[in-house]
Protein backbone atom coordinates (compact mmCIF):
# COMPACT_ATOMS: atom_id res chain seq x y z
CA UNK A 1 0.00 0.00 0.00
CA UNK A 2 1.31 3.44 -0.90
CA UNK A 3 2.58 5.58 1.94
CA UNK A 4 0.36 8.65 2.35
CA UNK A 5 3.36 10.70 3.47
CA UNK A 6 5.23 9.87 0.28
CA UNK A 7 2.18 10.59 -1.85
CA UNK A 8 1.73 13.99 -0.18
CA UNK A 9 5.36 14.83 -0.83
CA UNK A 10 5.04 13.97 -4.52
CA UNK A 11 1.74 15.81 -4.73
CA UNK A 12 3.27 18.96 -3.23
CA UNK A 13 6.04 18.65 -5.79
CA UNK A 14 3.40 18.94 -8.54
CA UNK A 15 2.63 15.29 -9.29
CA UNK A 16 -1.11 15.15 -10.07
CA UNK A 17 -1.01 11.35 -10.28
CA UNK A 18 0.08 11.25 -6.65
CA UNK A 19 -3.10 13.13 -5.72
CA UNK A 20 -5.19 10.59 -7.62
CA UNK A 21 -3.45 7.76 -5.78
CA UNK A 22 -4.07 9.56 -2.50
CA UNK A 23 -7.73 9.95 -3.41
CA UNK A 24 -8.04 6.27 -4.32
CA UNK A 25 -6.37 5.33 -1.04
CA UNK A 26 -8.32 7.59 1.31
CA UNK A 27 -11.63 8.48 -0.32
CA UNK A 28 -13.53 5.19 0.20
CA UNK A 29 -12.97 5.13 3.94
CA UNK A 30 -13.60 8.83 4.26
CA UNK A 31 -16.81 8.45 2.25
CA UNK A 32 -17.86 5.68 4.62
CA UNK A 33 -17.26 8.04 7.55
CA UNK A 34 -19.18 10.90 5.93
CA UNK A 35 -22.00 8.60 4.81
CA UNK A 36 -22.64 7.58 8.40
CA UNK A 37 -22.76 11.21 9.50
CA UNK A 38 -24.89 12.81 6.83
CA UNK A 39 -28.43 12.82 5.63
CA UNK A 40 -27.85 11.08 2.34
CA UNK A 41 -25.27 9.43 0.14
CA UNK A 42 -25.49 12.38 -2.25
CA UNK A 43 -24.65 14.75 0.60
CA UNK A 44 -21.74 12.53 1.62
CA UNK A 45 -20.42 12.55 -1.96
CA UNK A 46 -20.66 16.32 -2.02
CA UNK A 47 -18.88 16.66 1.31
CA UNK A 48 -16.17 14.31 0.09
CA UNK A 49 -15.53 16.47 -2.96
CA UNK A 50 -15.53 19.63 -0.81
CA UNK A 51 -13.07 18.00 1.58
CA UNK A 52 -10.64 17.04 -1.15
CA UNK A 53 -10.95 20.46 -2.73
CA UNK A 54 -10.00 22.00 0.63
CA UNK A 55 -7.11 19.56 0.96
CA UNK A 56 -5.95 20.51 -2.53
CA UNK A 57 -6.13 24.24 -1.82
CA UNK A 58 -4.41 23.82 1.56
CA UNK A 59 -1.68 21.46 0.32
CA UNK A 60 1.00 24.07 1.02
CA UNK A 61 0.07 23.84 4.71
CA UNK A 62 1.22 20.22 4.87
CA UNK A 63 4.40 19.61 6.87
CA UNK A 64 6.78 17.12 5.29
CA UNK A 65 6.93 13.83 7.13
CA UNK A 66 3.66 14.36 9.02
CA UNK A 67 0.89 11.75 8.87
CA UNK A 68 -1.70 13.46 6.65
CA UNK A 69 -4.65 11.19 7.42
CA UNK A 70 -5.73 12.72 10.76
CA UNK A 71 -5.49 16.13 9.08
CA UNK A 72 -7.68 14.91 6.19
CA UNK A 73 -10.27 13.55 8.60
CA UNK A 74 -10.23 16.81 10.59
CA UNK A 75 -10.89 18.74 7.39
CA UNK A 76 -13.75 16.34 6.60
CA UNK A 77 -15.11 16.84 10.13
CA UNK A 78 -14.90 20.62 9.78
CA UNK A 79 -16.56 20.46 6.34
CA UNK A 80 -19.41 18.36 7.73
CA UNK A 81 -19.92 20.66 10.74
CA UNK A 82 -19.88 23.82 8.60
CA UNK A 83 -22.38 22.33 6.16
CA UNK A 84 -24.65 21.13 8.96
CA UNK A 85 -24.63 24.63 10.50
CA UNK A 86 -25.29 26.22 7.13
CA UNK A 87 -28.28 23.95 6.56
CA UNK A 88 -29.58 24.61 10.06
CA UNK A 89 -29.34 28.36 9.52
CA UNK A 90 -31.18 27.98 6.21
CA UNK A 91 -33.95 25.99 7.92
CA UNK A 92 -34.16 28.58 10.71
CA UNK A 93 -34.41 31.42 8.20
CA UNK A 94 -37.21 29.69 6.33
CA UNK A 95 -39.04 28.37 9.41
CA UNK A 96 -38.63 31.48 11.52
CA UNK A 97 -38.12 29.69 14.82
CA UNK A 98 -35.60 27.49 16.58
CA UNK A 99 -34.97 24.18 14.90
CA UNK A 100 -33.82 21.17 16.83
CA UNK A 101 -30.79 19.28 15.71
CA UNK A 102 -31.37 17.59 12.36
CA UNK A 103 -30.78 13.89 12.72
CA UNK A 104 -29.25 12.00 9.85
CA UNK A 105 -31.51 9.89 7.69
CA UNK A 106 -28.98 7.42 6.49
CA UNK A 107 -29.78 5.68 3.23
CA UNK A 108 -28.70 2.11 3.43
CA UNK A 109 -28.14 0.62 0.05
CA UNK A 110 -26.16 1.96 -2.85
CA UNK A 111 -26.01 0.46 -6.31
CA UNK A 112 -22.25 0.56 -6.43
CA UNK A 113 -21.88 -1.65 -3.34
CA UNK A 114 -23.25 -4.86 -4.81
CA UNK A 115 -19.90 -6.20 -5.96
CA UNK A 116 -18.62 -7.25 -2.53
CA UNK A 117 -20.11 -9.71 -0.05
CA UNK A 118 -21.64 -7.94 2.90
CA UNK A 119 -21.99 -8.81 6.55
CA UNK A 120 -25.50 -9.29 7.90
CA UNK A 121 -27.26 -6.51 5.97
CA UNK A 122 -30.28 -6.42 8.25
CA UNK A 123 -28.17 -5.82 11.34
CA UNK A 124 -26.12 -3.23 9.49
CA UNK A 125 -29.28 -1.45 8.36
CA UNK A 126 -30.63 -1.48 11.91
CA UNK A 127 -27.38 0.07 13.14
CA UNK A 128 -27.55 2.76 10.46
CA UNK A 129 -31.13 3.62 11.35
CA UNK A 130 -30.30 3.78 15.03
CA UNK A 131 -27.26 5.97 14.32
CA UNK A 132 -29.45 8.40 12.44
CA UNK A 133 -31.38 9.02 15.67
CA UNK A 134 -28.35 10.16 17.64
CA UNK A 135 -27.25 13.77 18.17
CA UNK A 136 -24.46 14.75 15.78
CA UNK A 137 -21.61 14.71 18.30
CA UNK A 138 -22.59 11.31 19.70
CA UNK A 139 -23.14 9.91 16.23
CA UNK A 140 -19.69 11.05 15.14
CA UNK A 141 -18.11 9.66 18.31
CA UNK A 142 -19.68 6.23 17.74
CA UNK A 143 -18.77 6.26 14.04
CA UNK A 144 -15.14 7.13 14.71
CA UNK A 145 -14.51 4.84 17.68
CA UNK A 146 -16.64 1.83 16.82
CA UNK A 147 -16.92 1.81 13.03
CA UNK A 148 -13.83 3.59 11.71
CA UNK A 149 -11.44 1.85 14.11
CA UNK A 150 -10.06 5.03 15.64
CA UNK A 151 -8.83 5.11 19.21
CA UNK A 152 -10.50 7.60 21.53
CA UNK A 153 -7.41 9.81 21.30
CA UNK A 154 -7.42 9.73 17.50
CA UNK A 155 -11.15 10.44 17.40
CA UNK A 156 -10.67 13.38 19.77
CA UNK A 157 -8.03 14.90 17.47
CA UNK A 158 -10.25 14.49 14.39
CA UNK A 159 -13.20 16.11 16.12
CA UNK A 160 -11.08 18.82 17.73
CA UNK A 161 -12.03 17.99 21.29
CA UNK A 162 -10.51 16.47 24.41
CA UNK A 163 -10.15 12.75 25.09
CA UNK A 164 -12.49 13.09 28.06
CA UNK A 165 -15.22 14.74 26.01
CA UNK A 166 -14.87 12.12 23.27
CA UNK A 167 -15.21 9.32 25.83
CA UNK A 168 -18.39 10.88 27.19
CA UNK A 169 -19.85 11.32 23.70
CA UNK A 170 -18.98 7.76 22.69
CA UNK A 171 -20.38 6.34 25.91
CA UNK A 172 -23.64 8.27 25.66
CA UNK A 173 -23.97 7.43 21.99
CA UNK A 174 -23.38 3.75 22.64
CA UNK A 175 -25.89 3.71 25.51
CA UNK A 176 -28.45 5.42 23.31
CA UNK A 177 -27.83 2.87 20.56
CA UNK A 178 -28.34 0.02 23.01
CA UNK A 179 -31.69 1.48 24.00
CA UNK A 180 -32.67 1.97 20.38
CA UNK A 181 -31.54 -1.45 19.24
CA UNK A 182 -33.32 -3.49 21.86
CA UNK A 183 -32.90 -5.11 25.20
CA UNK A 184 -29.68 -4.88 27.19
CA UNK A 185 -27.58 -8.02 27.75
CA UNK A 186 -27.43 -9.70 31.17
CA UNK A 187 -25.35 -7.61 33.58
CA UNK A 188 -22.54 -10.17 33.76
CA UNK A 189 -21.90 -9.64 30.06
CA UNK A 190 -21.83 -5.82 30.10
CA UNK A 191 -18.64 -4.20 28.82
CA UNK A 192 -17.74 -0.59 29.53
CA UNK A 193 -18.16 1.40 26.29
CA UNK A 194 -14.74 3.04 26.47
CA UNK A 195 -13.08 -0.37 26.80
CA UNK A 196 -15.22 -1.54 23.91
CA UNK A 197 -14.00 1.39 21.85
CA UNK A 198 -10.41 0.54 22.57
CA UNK A 199 -11.04 -3.12 21.73
CA UNK A 200 -12.64 -2.24 18.40
CA UNK A 201 -9.78 0.13 17.65
CA UNK A 202 -7.30 -2.72 18.22
Amino acid at each position, binding site marked *: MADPRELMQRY*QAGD*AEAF*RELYALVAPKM*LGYLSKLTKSRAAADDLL*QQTFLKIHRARAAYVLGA*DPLPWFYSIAHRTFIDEARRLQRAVVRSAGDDVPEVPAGITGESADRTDEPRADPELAKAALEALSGLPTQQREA*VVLTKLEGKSVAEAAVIAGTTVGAMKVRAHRGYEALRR*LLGRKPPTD*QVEKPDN*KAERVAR
Partner: protein
Amino acid sequence: MSDADRSLDALAAEPPPLAPPLSALLEGELANLKAVAPRRPLRQLGILAIASLAYVGLLLAFMSLRADLGELPRAWIIGAGSAWFLGFGLATYFALVPRAGSMTPRWRAAIVTTAITSIAFIVLGLNVHPDGANSLHYGMPRLIHGHGCLWLGLATALVPVVLGAIFLRGAVPVYSRWIAAALGAAGGCLGGLLLHMHCRIADGPHIGIIHGGVVVIAAGLAALLVPRATNR
Protein backbone atom coordinates in the same frame (compact mmCIF):
# COMPACT_ATOMS: atom_id res chain seq x y z
CA MET B 1 -22.82 -9.69 23.02
CA SER B 2 -25.66 -7.18 22.95
CA ASP B 3 -27.87 -6.36 19.98
CA ALA B 4 -26.04 -3.04 19.71
CA ASP B 5 -22.66 -4.75 19.54
CA ARG B 6 -23.84 -7.20 16.90
CA SER B 7 -25.38 -4.45 14.81
CA LEU B 8 -22.31 -2.22 15.08
CA ASP B 9 -20.01 -5.12 14.24
CA ALA B 10 -22.16 -5.90 11.19
CA LEU B 11 -22.00 -2.26 10.10
CA ALA B 12 -18.25 -2.07 10.72
CA ALA B 13 -17.75 -5.19 8.60
CA GLU B 14 -19.50 -3.57 5.64
CA PRO B 15 -17.04 -2.82 2.83
CA PRO B 16 -16.37 0.88 2.29
CA PRO B 17 -18.42 2.47 -0.51
CA LEU B 18 -16.83 3.13 -3.86
CA ALA B 19 -15.75 6.73 -4.07
CA PRO B 20 -17.15 8.84 -6.89
CA PRO B 21 -14.78 10.22 -9.52
CA LEU B 22 -13.13 13.55 -8.82
CA SER B 23 -15.33 16.58 -9.43
CA ALA B 24 -14.86 18.64 -12.59
CA LEU B 25 -13.61 21.51 -10.44
CA LEU B 26 -10.89 19.38 -8.88
CA GLU B 27 -9.95 17.88 -12.23
CA GLY B 28 -9.61 21.37 -13.63
CA GLU B 29 -7.33 22.44 -10.78
CA LEU B 30 -5.25 19.28 -11.10
CA ALA B 31 -4.75 19.95 -14.80
CA ASN B 32 -2.89 23.13 -13.83
CA LEU B 33 -1.15 21.65 -10.81
CA LYS B 34 1.99 23.47 -9.78
CA ALA B 35 4.54 22.52 -7.17
CA VAL B 36 4.20 24.20 -3.79
CA ALA B 37 6.72 24.46 -0.99
CA PRO B 38 5.79 22.48 2.11
CA ARG B 39 5.10 24.33 5.31
CA ARG B 40 8.20 24.72 7.47
CA PRO B 41 6.99 25.59 10.95
CA LEU B 42 10.39 26.40 12.45
CA ARG B 43 11.24 28.68 9.55
CA GLN B 44 7.88 30.41 9.96
CA LEU B 45 8.59 30.78 13.68
CA GLY B 46 11.91 32.42 12.87
CA ILE B 47 10.37 34.78 10.34
CA LEU B 48 7.59 35.76 12.72
CA ALA B 49 9.99 36.34 15.61
CA ILE B 50 12.43 38.43 13.56
CA ALA B 51 9.68 40.50 11.95
CA SER B 52 7.94 41.09 15.28
CA LEU B 53 11.08 42.06 17.17
CA ALA B 54 12.23 44.28 14.31
CA TYR B 55 8.87 46.02 14.46
CA VAL B 56 9.23 46.59 18.20
CA GLY B 57 12.76 47.89 17.66
CA LEU B 58 11.56 50.37 15.06
CA LEU B 59 8.76 51.56 17.31
CA LEU B 60 11.14 52.07 20.21
CA ALA B 61 13.55 53.95 17.98
CA PHE B 62 10.68 56.16 16.86
CA MET B 63 9.07 56.67 20.26
CA SER B 64 12.18 56.48 22.51
CA LEU B 65 12.93 54.48 25.61
CA ARG B 66 11.30 55.36 28.92
CA ALA B 67 12.80 58.42 30.63
CA ASP B 68 13.19 56.66 34.00
CA LEU B 69 15.04 53.63 32.58
CA GLY B 70 18.35 54.48 34.26
CA GLU B 71 16.66 54.80 37.68
CA LEU B 72 15.08 51.35 37.78
CA PRO B 73 16.66 48.16 39.15
CA ARG B 74 18.55 46.48 36.35
CA ALA B 75 17.45 43.04 37.56
CA TRP B 76 13.81 44.08 37.18
CA ILE B 77 14.35 45.56 33.73
CA ILE B 78 16.09 42.41 32.50
CA GLY B 79 13.87 39.97 34.40
CA ALA B 80 10.54 41.47 33.40
CA GLY B 81 11.73 42.02 29.85
CA SER B 82 12.84 38.39 29.67
CA ALA B 83 9.47 37.26 30.98
CA TRP B 84 7.64 39.21 28.28
CA PHE B 85 10.00 37.82 25.65
CA LEU B 86 9.60 34.26 26.96
CA GLY B 87 5.82 34.59 26.89
CA PHE B 88 5.97 35.81 23.31
CA GLY B 89 8.37 33.06 22.25
CA LEU B 90 6.63 30.14 23.92
CA ALA B 91 3.12 31.09 22.84
CA THR B 92 4.27 31.56 19.25
CA TYR B 93 6.15 28.26 19.28
CA PHE B 94 3.16 26.26 20.52
CA ALA B 95 0.86 27.97 18.05
CA LEU B 96 3.03 27.44 14.98
CA VAL B 97 5.06 24.27 15.52
CA PRO B 98 3.26 20.92 15.73
CA ARG B 99 4.89 17.82 17.17
CA ALA B 100 7.24 15.96 14.83
CA GLY B 101 5.30 13.69 12.49
CA SER B 102 1.99 15.35 13.14
CA MET B 103 -0.16 18.12 11.68
CA THR B 104 -2.11 18.52 14.91
CA PRO B 105 -1.24 21.75 16.69
CA ARG B 106 -0.06 21.71 20.29
CA TRP B 107 -3.36 23.01 21.51
CA ARG B 108 -3.01 21.95 25.15
CA ALA B 109 0.33 23.74 25.50
CA ALA B 110 -1.21 26.71 23.69
CA ILE B 111 -4.08 26.85 26.21
CA VAL B 112 -1.74 26.59 29.20
CA THR B 113 0.62 29.26 27.87
CA THR B 114 -2.27 31.59 27.11
CA ALA B 115 -3.73 31.15 30.58
CA ILE B 116 -0.41 31.56 32.38
CA THR B 117 0.64 34.68 30.47
CA SER B 118 -2.81 36.21 30.82
CA ILE B 119 -2.84 35.81 34.58
CA ALA B 120 0.84 36.12 35.46
CA PHE B 121 1.52 39.50 33.91
CA ILE B 122 -1.52 41.06 35.56
CA VAL B 123 -0.59 39.65 38.96
CA LEU B 124 3.11 40.48 38.64
CA GLY B 125 2.36 43.95 37.35
CA LEU B 126 0.04 44.71 40.24
CA ASN B 127 2.62 43.58 42.78
CA VAL B 128 6.06 44.32 41.33
CA HIS B 129 6.45 47.87 39.97
CA PRO B 130 9.66 49.69 40.93
CA ASP B 131 9.85 53.39 40.16
CA GLY B 132 12.28 56.26 39.90
CA ALA B 133 12.30 60.02 40.16
CA ASN B 134 11.16 60.41 36.56
CA SER B 135 8.41 57.82 36.77
CA LEU B 136 4.75 58.76 36.54
CA HIS B 137 1.99 57.53 38.81
CA TYR B 138 -1.66 57.48 37.77
CA GLY B 139 -3.11 54.95 40.19
CA MET B 140 -6.66 53.61 40.09
CA PRO B 141 -8.37 57.04 40.00
CA ARG B 142 -6.66 57.87 36.72
CA LEU B 143 -6.35 54.34 35.35
CA ILE B 144 -8.35 55.18 32.25
CA HIS B 145 -5.90 57.96 31.34
CA GLY B 146 -3.38 55.28 30.56
CA HIS B 147 -5.52 53.83 27.75
CA GLY B 148 -2.95 54.90 25.15
CA CYS B 149 -0.74 52.05 26.33
CA LEU B 150 -3.57 49.62 25.74
CA TRP B 151 -3.96 50.70 22.11
CA LEU B 152 -0.21 50.75 21.54
CA GLY B 153 0.10 47.25 22.99
CA LEU B 154 -2.74 45.91 20.87
CA ALA B 155 -1.35 47.55 17.73
CA THR B 156 1.96 45.83 18.42
CA ALA B 157 0.17 42.52 18.92
CA LEU B 158 -1.20 42.76 15.39
CA VAL B 159 2.12 41.82 13.79
CA PRO B 160 2.52 38.27 15.20
CA VAL B 161 -1.23 37.65 15.02
CA VAL B 162 -1.51 38.58 11.35
CA LEU B 163 1.67 36.76 10.36
CA GLY B 164 0.64 33.70 12.36
CA ALA B 165 -2.78 33.66 10.74
CA ILE B 166 -1.19 33.83 7.29
CA PHE B 167 1.24 31.01 8.08
CA LEU B 168 -1.52 28.78 9.51
CA ARG B 169 -4.10 29.15 6.74
CA GLY B 170 -5.57 25.75 5.99
CA ALA B 171 -3.36 24.02 8.54
CA VAL B 172 -5.66 24.15 11.57
CA PRO B 173 -9.15 22.80 10.79
CA VAL B 174 -9.68 21.98 14.48
CA TYR B 175 -8.53 23.59 17.75
CA SER B 176 -8.23 26.83 15.80
CA ARG B 177 -9.64 29.05 18.56
CA TRP B 178 -7.06 27.84 21.06
CA ILE B 179 -4.23 28.35 18.59
CA ALA B 180 -5.57 31.78 17.71
CA ALA B 181 -5.75 32.67 21.41
CA ALA B 182 -2.10 31.63 21.78
CA LEU B 183 -1.14 33.86 18.84
CA GLY B 184 -3.03 36.70 20.50
CA ALA B 185 -1.29 36.07 23.81
CA ALA B 186 2.04 36.03 21.99
CA GLY B 187 1.19 39.36 20.41
CA GLY B 188 0.08 40.71 23.75
CA CYS B 189 3.40 39.72 25.33
CA LEU B 190 5.22 41.47 22.50
CA GLY B 191 3.12 44.54 23.20
CA GLY B 192 3.95 44.21 26.87
CA LEU B 193 7.65 44.07 26.04
CA LEU B 194 7.37 47.30 24.07
CA LEU B 195 5.46 49.01 26.87
CA HIS B 196 7.98 47.71 29.42
CA MET B 197 10.73 49.57 27.56
CA HIS B 198 8.75 52.69 26.60
CA CYS B 199 6.12 53.51 29.23
CA ARG B 200 7.26 55.34 32.41
CA ILE B 201 3.95 55.03 34.26
CA ALA B 202 5.10 52.92 37.18
CA ASP B 203 2.09 52.22 39.39
CA GLY B 204 0.69 48.73 39.97
CA PRO B 205 -2.77 49.25 38.46
CA HIS B 206 -1.34 50.63 35.24
CA ILE B 207 1.33 47.96 34.79
CA GLY B 208 -0.91 45.13 35.93
CA ILE B 209 -4.25 46.03 34.43
CA ILE B 210 -3.24 47.97 31.33
CA HIS B 211 0.04 46.34 30.33
CA GLY B 212 -1.03 42.89 31.56
CA GLY B 213 -4.49 43.40 30.16
CA VAL B 214 -3.06 43.72 26.65
CA VAL B 215 -2.33 39.97 26.76
CA VAL B 216 -5.86 39.07 27.80
CA ILE B 217 -7.55 41.34 25.29
CA ALA B 218 -5.27 40.35 22.42
CA ALA B 219 -5.84 36.66 23.18
CA GLY B 220 -9.59 37.12 23.30
CA LEU B 221 -9.80 39.17 20.13
CA ALA B 222 -7.57 36.76 18.23
CA ALA B 223 -9.67 33.79 19.37
CA LEU B 224 -12.79 35.55 18.09
CA LEU B 225 -11.45 36.80 14.77
CA VAL B 226 -8.55 34.67 13.55
CA PRO B 227 -10.22 31.25 13.07
CA ARG B 228 -12.11 32.57 10.06
CA ALA B 229 -8.75 33.16 8.40
CA THR B 230 -7.09 29.90 9.44
CA ASN B 231 -10.10 27.63 8.73
CA ARG B 232 -10.51 27.06 5.04
